[in-house]
């Protein structure tokens, strides 16, 4: 069965590009614009992996991850930060919020490789 990936971002450009690039890889990709309502999408769609942007107005990705990881229906779904932030701050956020890891935006190679890696890890 095709793996399902959910991308949550406030920037449509990043949603479009990541979605298409990952669809090219054969994944099923769902997108959620902005942080609000994302927890519900996660619960309903039960993706195999969540790519979560960090800087989002209203509710930041790291706080959102905390909400998802504390919810019974979403706590086992692996979350990976997908952000343009500096790597140091991402590393810090990963260990602080207990998500699986991070992928830096900007490199298609890293995106493909990162997604394959984290999906493999979650099996």
């Amino acid at each position, binding site marked *: 069965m095709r793996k399902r990936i959910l991308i949550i971002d*406030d*920037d449509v*450009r*990043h949603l*479009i*590009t*990541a979605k*298409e*690039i990952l669809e*090219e890889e054969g994944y099923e990709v769902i997108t959620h614009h902005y942080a609000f309502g994302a927890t519900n999408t996660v619960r309903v769609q039960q993706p195999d992996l969540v790519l979560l942007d*960090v*800087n989002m*107005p*209203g*509710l*930041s990705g*790291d*706080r959102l991850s905390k909400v998802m990881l504390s919810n019974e229906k979403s706590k086992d779904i692996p979350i990976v930060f997908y*952000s*343009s*932030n*500096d790597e140091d*701050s991402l590393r810090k*956020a990963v260990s602080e919020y207990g998500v699986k890891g991070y992928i830096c*935006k*900007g*490199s*298609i190679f890293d995106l493909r490789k990162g997604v394959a890696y984290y999906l493999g890890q979650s099996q």
Partner: protein
Amino acid sequence: MTFETECHTVGVLIASRENVPPQTRVNRVAENFFGSTSLDAVAIVEGNEPVGLVTRQKLLFTLFRRFGFELYGRKPVITVADTEPLTIHKNERLDVAIDMALQRPVEDIYDEIIVVNDSSCFMGLLSVKQMIIQQSNALANSMVQKEIAKARIKELENIEKIKSQFIANVTHELRSPVNAIIGLAELMKISCEKGYMDQLNDRLSLLMSSASNLRAIITNILDLSKIEAGKMEVIYEGFDMAALLRESAETTRVLLGNKPVEVDVITPISPLHIVSDPLKVRQILTNLLSNAAKFTEKGKISLLLNEEEGRIKIIVCDTGLGIKDEDISRLFTAFTQLEDVTTKRHEGTGLGLTITKNLIRMLGGSISVSSTYGKGTAFEIVLPKMSSE
């Protein structure tokens, strides 16, 4: 704790130079004490060398005993004096001198100390009480200094924190559009390879808007650096403010696209000639109007121009999103500096308004804002009509 840096040498603390020869009669010395209530001790000096010390307390105690005057009054003072008083060199440190003074027998502790120079010549007397006051002042002072230093360290740490947050913010703001451009270019390449030419146009538009977005951010960062480095120059010339306002309104209409938002310009006096920097005034208006266009979904954006007492007043108001009270204070701060990039709740860099405020200040004007969340925002700019230069 060390007093090394705080400590004086005793030479500078000499409290009195009172001295008498050893043969002076006790009565005479007593008269000196009676005559001056502030005189606490007299050194006995022979030639230039100190040979003894009489303190007020001990001399008067001797004289006021039974038959004291009769027994001692006419005798040379040296006979009732302490002939081995504590004597120290003028370069001795204050704390060492105090230690030496306090090591004396209890009844002598507060006796004055004789200070001598390199050739053992009498220089003066030190008051132990005053030295202790001096020492405790030094201690208090060093504590104050320590507090000041602590506060400074905290301030530096804070600056350091703001600096690293600024860098983190810049990193994100610059990378985000660059990453979008790279991603979109990649998608276009895939479209070309697969022959999906119909997708190209949309992607190209997104790519171009990402590129302009990036250019605007870079321009803003460079402008702000220029302002902060004091390298931004003001070039004054005469121009028609009303015309500039109408022109800016036109640009705003383009920015609004299809949104149902009217743009009104109210200029009672036209033309209104002022002397200022037209490029900077245009940049100020563009910044405020592009914000208004971004946050207003329907209704109206109004531009009002007035002249009063040698100044012009421009009001830019909209029926947009509005600003929450708690966010107003951070409005003119780049990247809302104190905000952590990872927990950032606010869209945009805040650079535009920071630059706007700085530009207005450079032109000798001021800006204020009032807003009701959900109803709209009004920025009021006041600029001098003529340059002060």
